[in-house]
Structure formats: C-alpha cells, structure tokens
C-alpha cells in the first residue's frame, strides 16, 4: 500500500470507529466528543484530498462551531450522572439491521457507479476563485443559495431572540 492509501484507511477507520461510539455511548457528552472526532477526521479526509478550504470550513463550522454549541447546551441542561436508558434488545437488532441495510445500499450504489479517472490535476483553489463564485450570479455562481441560506440564518437568529425575549418578560 502506498502512504496515500494508508492515510485514507486510517481516516476511514477513525470515522467508523468513533461513529459507532457516538451512537452507542450512554453518556451524552461523551457522544458529543466522539462526534467531534468524527468531524475532525472528515476534515482530515478533505485535507487528504488537497481540498483545504473545505477542510478548514469543516473544522470551523462543525468542530469549532456546532459541536461547541452542542456541548454548551449539554452543559446547560444535563447532569454529569445522567445516563441514557439501556436500549431494549429488539430495538438494538432493528436499528442495527436498518444501519447495515443502509450501508449495503450505499456501498453497492458506489460500487456500481463507474468513476472515470480525470486527467486534470488537482487545481489549487484560490481564495479569489471561491470568493468570486460565491458572489457570482452567472454560471457556476452561488449567490442565490448563499443569499437563501443567509435569509434562513437570519430567520433562525430572529426566532432565537424572540424565544429568549419571551421567557424574560414572563
């Protein structure tokens, strides 16, 4: 195996291992921490693909942002001695079956697809290119999704403020 492949295998193993731990852990904060590892390993995969911008976005948004918020809300709401209930045997079997079925579906689909090797070398994605395509309304432009997401975020923020205000006035 080449070094490249070894790296891929390591990242894949980390992702799979911590994903399983995330869903099986009975302590909520541990689950959140394992999720953090999954997300960081995913960012590692992006780095492995030389797609640094995406990797950094992954780390900032998911690892640094969303996991922090999740942990923060866990801190606010749960006690250290809280445990999830042990799941009943039947539920475990069913969910395992569902997960395995999903995995098989994904793997077969991927295997059936014939990926064509492209000749083009990995192009270094310049910041200028990213910035311009984000603000572009022509072909390959992302201004519409960008703006729509902004509106969504604005709505979320306003609703958060409204909720916070409501409990205060009571």
């Amino acid at each position, binding site marked *: 195996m*080449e*070094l490249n492949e070894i790296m891929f295998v390591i990242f894949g193993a980390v992702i799979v291992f911590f994903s399983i731990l995330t869903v099986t852990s009975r*302590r909520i*904060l*541990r689950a959140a*921490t394992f999720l*953090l590892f999954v997300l*960081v390993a995913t960012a590692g995969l992006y780095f492995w693909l030389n797609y*640094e*911008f995406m*990797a*950094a*976005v992954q*780390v*900032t948004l998911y*690892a*640094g*942002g969303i*996991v*922090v*918020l999740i*942990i*923060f809300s*866990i*801190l*606010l709401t749960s006690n*250290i*001695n809280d445990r999830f209930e042990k799941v009943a045997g039947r539920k475990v079997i069913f969910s395992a079956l569902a997960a395995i079925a999903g995995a098989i579906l994904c793997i077969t689909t991927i295997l059936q697809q014939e990926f064509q090797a492209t000749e083009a070398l990995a192009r*270094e*994605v*310049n*910041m*200028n290119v990213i910035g311009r395509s984000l603000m572009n309304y022509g072909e390959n432009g992302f201004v519409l999704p960008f703006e729509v997401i902004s509106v969504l975020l604005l709505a979320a923020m306003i609703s958060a403020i409204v909720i916070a205000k409501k409990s205060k006035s009571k």
Partner: protein
Amino acid sequence: MAFNIYDFTSFTEWIDQGLRSVMSPAWAVITELAIIGIVFLVFYALIGLILVYAERKICAFIQCRIGPNRVGPYGIFQTIADFIKLLMKELIHINKADKLLFNLAPFIVIIASFMALSAIPFAKGLHPVNLNIGIFFILAVSSMGVVGILLAGWSSNNKYSLIGAMRSGAQIVSYELSVGLSILTACVLIGSLQLSVIVESQADGWLIFKGHIPAVIAFVIYLIAATAETNRGPFDLAEAESELTAGFHTEYSGIKFAFFFLAEYMNMFLVAAIAATIFWGGWMPFHIGNWEGFNRVMDFIPPIIWFFGKTVVIILIMMWFKWTFPRLRIDQLLTLEWKYLLPINLINILLMALIVLLGWHF
C-alpha cells in the same frame, strides 16, 4: 550547501533532498514529519518555559518585586524547577468525574494550539505547511481548543469548574467573531489567506501602515479579542481566581494542570505571532516604500529576529494588560463584544473595502 539565516528555503530543501536520496519518498515524508514533530515539541516546551519565566519577571517588575531569583542566576531555572515539580506531583483522581473526558480535555486543548502553530511562518522559508488558506486554518483549529475547556469544566463534576467552562464557552464563541472579522479586514487589503503571501505583500511596508486607519482599528480590536480568546486577564473569567478558585481547571493537578498552563502560554504566543504576521509583517523587516538604502539596512537583521521581536513586543503588551487591569464581569465582557467590537468591526471592514476599491491605501 550554504546555511543562510536570511532565507531558510535552501536549508529545508537540502534536508528534503538528503532524505529522499537515502530512502523511499514515503519514508522521507514520514521522517520529515517526525523531525518537524520533535522540533515543535522542543520549541513548544522552550517557548512555554521562557514565557512563564518572562511573565513572572515582568509581573514582578510591574508589582515592585524582584521575582524569581533563587534557582540559577536571576532565577532563570525557576520554571524548569516548577515543571519538574508539576511532573512529579500526584495526579488526583476524582471519584465522581467522567474520567475519560477528564483525562482527554487537556490533550484537546494542547493539540489545538499545537496544530495552529504548524502554519505560522517563522522566517523566510521556515514554515511547516504553507496552506493557501493558512490564516483560515489557524482560526479553525484554534477554535477547537474551547472544546477542551468545556469538557474539562463539565467532567470535573465541580460547580466552580462548570461555571468557569460556561463563561469560557460564551466568551470564546463571542470573541472568535471579532478575531475572525479583524483578520478578514486585513485580508481584504492583502487579497490572500496564504500566510507566505501575506508576509511577502508587506515588503513595501507593514499592513498597519499601509492600511492606516482601518488597519489600526482592526489591530486594536484583534489585540483585545485575542486577549479574550486566550483567557488572559483582564478577560480571565474562565479561571477568575477570586470568584471561581481556578475555574475550569480547579480539579486538575500535576502534569494535566501543566498542560492547561502550557496551552495558555502557547496560545498567547500564537495570537501574538498571528498579530505580528498579519499586521506587522511577520518576518518582513521594517521597510518604507521606496527608501532603498533604509530598506537594505533593515534587511541586515535576520527575518527570524524580526519575527520573534515583533511577537515578543505583542506578548509584552498582553502581559501589561493582565497585570494592570481588574477583571471584567461576564455581562460586561459580552457587552463589549456584541455592542462595541462587533459593530465597529463590521463598519471597519466596509471602510477597508472602500479604501481598497478607491485605492486610498499606500
């Protein structure tokens, strides 16, 4: 191969060539990684020791004291003695703590600062990775450090720790915005996120002079926000010794406490290095536009000295903050960020864009 302290490119290439000539490329990469890792570990420990010693001496001078003066001449071995003491101390196990997370937390904090360090250009040709989104990468990985603090606070099963962790979470999440935006202001002028390009583009003058008003505002905001991000006084609410005994690391002892301690100083070095790189030109000597003669004279000082000199100055400013100001309260801290720094920052970034578009910068 001539060893050149003005340009490390040839030096690093020489090492690379040498390694590749004796082993396969894969092993060469692994060996290089190992070398960089070891160098960084040593560097990390060294910076930690020096900074702790410097902090003690400087705070002693500010407080009309002498400071450490027993271990070695002028007490220079004091921090080493302290680290040995910390290493030999008992690691206290807390019965009702979440042991896995409790033990994991210091590592997350220290790994985050370690990773961020890997993208800093120390001198010309002396940076481990030259990512094209370098500054964004540093912001991203350093934002992971807060997870370690939150975990430490929660898993200690101590109410003071939990309050400290909450404060630190709220604080770091808020101040990351200001750090990011003030760096973005600088990047608007430079037009790149790659740290090597950022430094090179300041060859005709540092950014703080080129961008004049908005750059100065961005620098000041960055300095405030970065002090807050590193949990240092006057923003050390997460530790808040007088209120929360020691905040999130109340329950830690021995080497695990040393990790938090080290990470705090490392983060301070890191934010100072970023400020020096972005606003004061990193390893770039002090150049003034077209004054060829003056620039030549400045070039005689090696870049690595320029880099560390600037970083040290910024660290000194941050230490001066800590030993002069009282601590803020949590609501005042958040008010400062959300009501003052953030709006100023947003207006400032617009101003910078305007200046760039109209070409009013130098």
